[in-house]
């Protein structure tokens, strides 16, 4: 597409927050609508994730299978099950990627994908595999339920519940079989992975962890109590619980605050998708 035309068709403008009424249908899973790699995935009237919109140029795509809990990646969508598969999104219709291992067992949480790998949780195991690989690597686990796993290939991380009510971060190297416990002690929640890093929250701080080197950085924050964090190019965005209201803050200094609650941040480059009260909003950082 011609660059100036694409820019004109793209959503948002620097320094402005605009409501996305056309993508505001409530989803069965409140972690949607979601942004991944410049694509906005939103729901139909039945609460299933059914459509995708490229934020840069407004190109809309109907997804081949509408489900409540797909895995969305940067320009792809993965749906487990016999009618499922992995599709790459582009200028035309979604393109199915062949040879994705068939998953039919019930999942404890939505799966995740980075478009080249897939990770998922059952009640008793964490599984991860490369697209095109028919063998699923599996490790025993007691996932806390509801929280999806996170991918920073070859590492996969998840929230483990050694006993009901307890939560710690666990990570597993799919290639070496090494298993590690994340820093922090208790109350881990909402792990997310990208670019070789994992981020999550616990009761007092945000964590950014590079599992290979075990380098960890903690940022004091009251965050992640009602919505997942967002991790994009090493920047964490999160809901911050202030006295009497919730605002959004990112570790690179970007913040959204105002009347009412700003919730559920999802960062993609200079864009930040979030909810203000019951409305879906898109904010573009000033240049």
């Amino acid at each position, binding site marked *: 597409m011609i660059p100036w035309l694409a820019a004109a068709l793209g959503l948002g403008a620097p320094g402005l927050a605009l409501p996305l009424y056309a993508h505001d249908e*409530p989803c*069965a*899973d*409140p972690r949607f609508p979601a942004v991944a790699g410049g694509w906005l995935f939103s729901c139909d009237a039945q*609460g299933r994730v059914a459509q995708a919109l490229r934020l840069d140029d407004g190109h809309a795509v109907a997804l081949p299978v509408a489900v*409540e809990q797909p895995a969305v990646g940067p320009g792809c969508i993965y749906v487990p099950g016999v009618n499922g598969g992995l599709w790459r999104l582009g200028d035309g219709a979604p393109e199915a990627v062949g040879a994705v291992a068939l998953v039919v067992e019930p999942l404890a949480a939505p799966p995740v994908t980075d478009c080249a790998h897939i990770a998922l949780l059952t*009640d008793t195991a964490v599984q991860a595999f490369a697209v095109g690989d028919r063998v699923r690597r599996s490790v025993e686990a007691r996932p*806390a*339920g*509801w929280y999806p796993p996170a991918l920073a290939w070859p590492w996969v991380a998840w929230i483990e*519940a050694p*006993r*009901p*009510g307890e939560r710690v971060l666990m990570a597993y190297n799919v290639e070496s079989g090494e298993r590690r416990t994340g820093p922090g002690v208790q109350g881990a*929640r909402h792990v997310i992975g990208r670019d070789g890093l994992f981020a999550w929250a616990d009761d007092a701080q945000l964590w950014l962890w590079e599992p290979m080197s075990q380098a960890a950085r903690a940022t004091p924050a009251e965050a992640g*109590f*009602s*919505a997942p964090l967002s991790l994009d190019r090493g920047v964490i965005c999160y809901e911050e*619980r202030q006295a*009497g*209201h*919730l605002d959004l803050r990112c570790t690179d200094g970007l913040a959204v605050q105002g009347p009412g*609650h700003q*919730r559920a941040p999802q960062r993609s480059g200079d864009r930040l998708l979030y909810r203000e009260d019951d409305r879906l909003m898109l904010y573009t950082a000033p240049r």
Partner: protein
Amino acid sequence: MRAAGALLGLGVGLAFVWLDPEAALRPEAALAALQALGAALAVGLGAIGGGSALLQRLAPRLLDDGRGLLHAAVIGLMLHALLGLGLAGLGLFVPLGPSLPSLLLGLGWLSRPPVRAELNRNEALLIGLLGVFVAAGLLPALAPPVDTDELYYQLSLPRQIAETGLLPGGLLRPDGSRPLLLHLPFASAYALGGASAPRLLHLGLAALLLPALGAWGRALGRPAAGGLAALLLVGSYSVLAEGGLAATNLPAAAAVLCVLDAALRGEAIGLALAAGAALGLKYTTAGGVAGAFLVARMPLRQRIFAGVGALLLLTPWWARNALAGLHPLFPYAGWPPPQPGTEFTFVYLEKYGAGRAPLDLALAPLRAVMSAKVTSFRFLGKLSPAWVAAAPLALWGLLRIRGDAARIAIAGAIGLLAWVAGPHWIRHLLPIAPVIALALGLGVEGAPRPAAGRLALGLATLLGLGANLLPLLPALADRVGVVTGQEPQAAFLDRHLDPLPAVRFVNEHTRDDAVVAVFFDWSLFYIERPTLLGSVEDHIPSRDFLLRHGPGSLDALRALGATHVLVRRAGFLQKSYPFLTKAELDRAFRDPEAQLGERLLLEGELLFERHGVAVWKISP
């Protein structure tokens, strides 16, 4: 010889089920059904034994014919409940409640009471209708419960009583403060046979209505009247659909029929016992009970004696409330306003039926038949058009004949007027429905040409079958798989219950000592942790709690021991409450819900959410 035949048939049948290579009926499903049936029979037969022994001493004439079985069952269940109340008061319900009341009442059979099942072989219509009623109730009774009222109240209370031995009640569980006349026998049945047992017990008790109507028709010299009354009932969706549920409407109908029978036979003690049972089952039977007292064939003094006796039978329940610091009639009276100087509306009468203007009230019975909807508050149910088709001819007949038929009609009319004055739900009409049906049946048979009335009634029933059966048949077909064991229970529940993923999360991912406060949701039956609150429809307990405690609601919950909150997005719509202004709707409905959402956002931690049902952790 008969016993040998029964044993042979049972043995071969069970062997067939066990050995069937296609396992059409899985043995574990058959065994679960048999266990539930055994539990229901144990509680039901125990109650009948005790009830009939008592009646044999106090009002033996009531056991003279086929109506005696219904009298015995109603009185026996009331005795079971009073014994259960005593055991719970002594803290002994958990070890003794499931079996001791039935064992004690079952001793009544030793007195060889003359109670018997009576079905005249010539009454093919009645026998066929009984078969249809039981068959329609069996599948829902054996399937996992998904009915809103069962999950919130009719089965969750018995389950809670059976598991803890405690009787819930008060503002946090207002339904538990009603007289638990049916729920204590249900608790015993649940403890012995699981969720299907109370529903089979209910189905059996409701089924006894039909032969009792037949016996009454025969006793009045109009043997076909009972069959016609049964046709009116069984031809109606609202009656058929309720058979296989655990509910109080049809048992209350059985009790009202007993009240009227005792009143017309001049049995003051029987009248007192039955009236106590009817009012204990549902206070809304008061209209029908008052009608029976009015037409009773006994002097005023005896009626007063019977009335006082009936009220005495209710005093244990009233005393229980008073001892808990509540109004004796709580939750129907004495609900403390959540905020000083404000009123809290318990029932919005305008919400139901088709209006409350004088003309609307006059037309309500006609509209309840001709324009009711199964899925809307426009009467929320369906009746056979035969009720209307029978009315003119029955009225003609009733004007011609003398005796009990006219008195039955007057009692039915008073019950109907009471229904018109109350909420216009068809299910609230059910307790008086058999009396009205019997009056119509007697009237049709008393008309100069009964054949014309029978034809009108039959044709209208036939034409009404579509509207009355179509909502029911898909639901029955849907349950075949899970009842036979072909479909896993979890898959069946997943298809029917939106909150189930949240409930499953609570059961699998919270500590055993977690206490869950439930707001705007009714899935209490499936939550395997102690619960507080829960609510349906107008969500009175949830809203009352939030209005009462305001911004301190979560602190109040913590003080009560709650560690988690399960909350459904209620989203109260203005179109559901057109009689309220926006300000009224906001104040009473939306603001409390929004306030809870706000406090959870600021103080809680979201652990799970799907389909608008969320689980929050609120423990500090």
